[in-house]
């Protein structure tokens, strides 16, 4: 149905644009997470996959039975905010059909997991609609005039006539669902977690020893990554303390690195602000995110080496982010918002990529491995001031220093809706020599607190410039920024 109709039916619902690539990536991340439940996990073979196929042969007893396994999957997915329908059967076709179309008695609540007993797929599939057999829409359409809507009706038709009247696919899908024909599962690559751990004989809080052990474990991890030419993008160290607590140590990099001294330097920077409340009894080092390494040829003579420049920039960002925190090293991005406080947003540099290029990381032949979580994919906003929409007028200049909150000032204006003539700021009285304005900004009603302001750029008799506004309703004056 069109979007307008949907909005009319469910005004409180959240609507977002359809992004199949992001959906697929999120599903792949879920598949990697599901590997703890079975021998192999695969995405269903479709243009836009929506289901995961998990081979749990022999895994039931490990979780206390197949029902318990299925219930655990549903519970854990619910914690991540996903509603899942789980069906367990002998064949892929049967499990898919029951999970998609095997509704429970209450149509509104997601049904609980359905376990089909071994050999019982025929009984389970009979009452379902024919779409449960994964038939293509054209075949379903072709069967409709014959009033064949249920699988039982389809199975009642003479089998030999099906290929000629409809397609070979019908027979193939029936055989796959019932288990007469095998079906291949293409498993997702196993998310191998590269980690190394160490337990101390006696718990210690001596920093040098802890750092020496981390270095040793890091070398082991790098040795396993080196043959595959992978570098670490995010390193995670777990410090287990004697009182049972766990202290995580996360080191992020702008570019993947396989250099132990560089990584240890960043670990030491992080450790400088780490407070250990108890002694450490064990620790483990894990390559949380790995990416293929980039190789550069070293130049013999000094020249305009762009790659060297990028490498040095990456090193600086890593040092700053790991010592001050990722949220302290930011990249400004302009937003198309009229309200000055929201016209700009800051994003951490780690995770942004190198300057001057695209905002997404280059993904060579690898995908991020390890415990990847589904990520949001948003387009990068423009980095130049918005123009054009307001006709010939461009956005007027803004002050380089903006107060986090506008400050109320005592100001006097002669004309009732005119600029200020005199105002007090920092215990000084400023007389206005020139003022430009008003620039009316009325926006933000969707945020709950709409603003209606008349902005003026004022220049005092001493030549100093300030950016002030008057609220239209309360007629109060505020100073928002200074041209420091």
């Amino acid at each position, binding site marked *: 149905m069109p979007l307008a109709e949907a909005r009319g039916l469910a005004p409180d619902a959240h609507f977002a644009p359809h992004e199949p690539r992001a959906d697929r990536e999120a599903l792949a991340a879920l598949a990697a997470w599901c590997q703890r439940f079975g021998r192999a996990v695969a995405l269903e073979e479709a243009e836009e996959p929506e289901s995961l196929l998990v081979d749990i042969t022999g895994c039931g007893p490990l979780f206390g039975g197949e029902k318990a396994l299925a219930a655990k999957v549903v519970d854990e997915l619910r914690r991540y905010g996903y509603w899942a329908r789980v069906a367990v059967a002998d064949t892929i076709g049967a499990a898919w059909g029951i999970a998609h179309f095997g509704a429970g008695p209450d149509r509104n609540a997601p049904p609980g997991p359905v376990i089909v007993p071994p050999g019982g797929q025929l009984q389970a599939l009979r009452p379902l609609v024919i779409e449960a057999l994964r038939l293509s829409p054209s075949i379903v359409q072709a069967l409709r005039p014959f009033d064949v809507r249920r699988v039982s009706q389809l199975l009642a038709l003479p089998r030999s006539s099906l290929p000629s009247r409809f397609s070979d696919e019908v027979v193939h899908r029936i055989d796959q669902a019932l288990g007469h024909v095998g079906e291949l599962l293409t498993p997702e690559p196993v998310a191998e977690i590269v980690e190394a751990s160490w337990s101390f004989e006696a718990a210690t809080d001596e920093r040098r020893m802890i750092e020496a052990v981390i270095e040793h474990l890091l070398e082991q991890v790098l040795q396993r990554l080196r043959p595959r030419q992978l570098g670490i993008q995010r390193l995670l160290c777990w410090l287990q303390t004697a009182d049972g607590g766990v202290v995580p140590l996360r080191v992020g990099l702008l570019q993947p690195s396989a250099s132990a001294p560089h990584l240890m330097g960043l670990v030491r920077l992080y450790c400088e602000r780490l407070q250990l409340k108890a002694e450490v009894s064990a620790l483990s080092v894990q390559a949380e995110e790995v990416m293929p390494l980039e190789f550069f040829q070293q130049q*013999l*003579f*000094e020249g305009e080496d762009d790659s060297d*420049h990028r490498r*040095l*920039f990456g090193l*600086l*960002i890593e*040092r*700053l982010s790991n*010592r*001050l925190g990722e949220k*302290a*090293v*930011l*990249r*400004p*991005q*302009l937003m198309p918002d009229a309200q*000055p406080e929201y*016209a*700009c947003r800051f994003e951490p540099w780690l995770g942004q990529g190198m*300057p*001057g290029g695209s905002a997404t990381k280059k993904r060579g032949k690898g995908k991020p491995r390890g415990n990847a979580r589904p990520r949001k994919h948003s387009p990068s906003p423009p*980095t*130049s*001031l918005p123009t054009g929409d307001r006709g010939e007028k*461009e*956005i*007027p*200049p*803004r*002050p*380089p*220093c*903006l*107060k*986090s909150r506008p400050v109320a000032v005592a100001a006097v204006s*002669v*004309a009732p809706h*005119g*600029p200020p*003539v005199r105002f007090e700021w*920092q215990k*000084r009285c400023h*007389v206005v*020599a*020139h*003022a*430009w*304005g008003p620039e009316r900004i009325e926006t933000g009603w969707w945020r709950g607190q709409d603003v209606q302001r008349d902005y003026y*750029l004022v220049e005092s*008799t001493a*030549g*100093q*410039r*300030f950016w002030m506004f008057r609220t239209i309703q309360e007629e109060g004056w505020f100073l928002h*920024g200074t*041209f*420091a």
Partner: protein
Amino acid sequence: MSRASRREIIHDLQERLRQITRSGRPVRQAVLPAGCTLGRFLPGQELTAGTLIEWLGEGEGSGAATLALAVAAELCGASGILVLIDTNREFYPPAAAGLGIPLDRTVVVQPASPGDALWALEQALRSAAVTVAFGWIEALSDRVFHRLQLAAQTGGTLGFLLRPAACRTEPSCAQLRLLVEAAPRPESSALWDRIPILSTGAAPTPGLFGGWRLRARVLHRRGGPAGETITLELNHEARLVSLAAPMAHSALAPRASGAS
């Protein structure tokens, strides 16, 4: 092959040898772009690699940060990187974009303490990838100042330190110390210009910056005289234009007409 050209070739080869055998990274030579405003403050001198410049401003609204950002925009040009240490958390990027700063090559650091701010500034100065390192610094001891100077020399980075005007009496390790003030508009004889109520009525045009005059007085210049004052104006494209000093009164007697 003439002797002069052979000498040149030998000199060139020796220079290259020195580059290869030099330990550590060769220091990047900072070269001023042609027509850069900073050149006005250093006549006859080259801006050497690793320089610190102090910009002192009296109170808010004085224009020191605006002028420093405009000069930084000129230096960064099309490919330079700017690292800005925003200690007060007041930096407003849309204004910087209007002055020509490339936001996709800007790193804004928001440190939690003044100590972190100085450390971050030192790291930025030390990195050869950074063109301009910009920071608001209040108190600066001699020791730390020397460290920043050394870091700037190592990385070949230009350091812009924004400081309160009260620091003018303190000793400086910078190559240049400038006191920036906003210049009031020249007195006009027209009666209506003296009345301080002026409203254009219409919404502000991009020419707002046009006509903002800033005076930069050289308080300290290493290897040169101090005391010079240069008046600059931000034109309608938010670009700096320096104004010539008013013509001095001619000391020569006017020529009598008809003199042979």
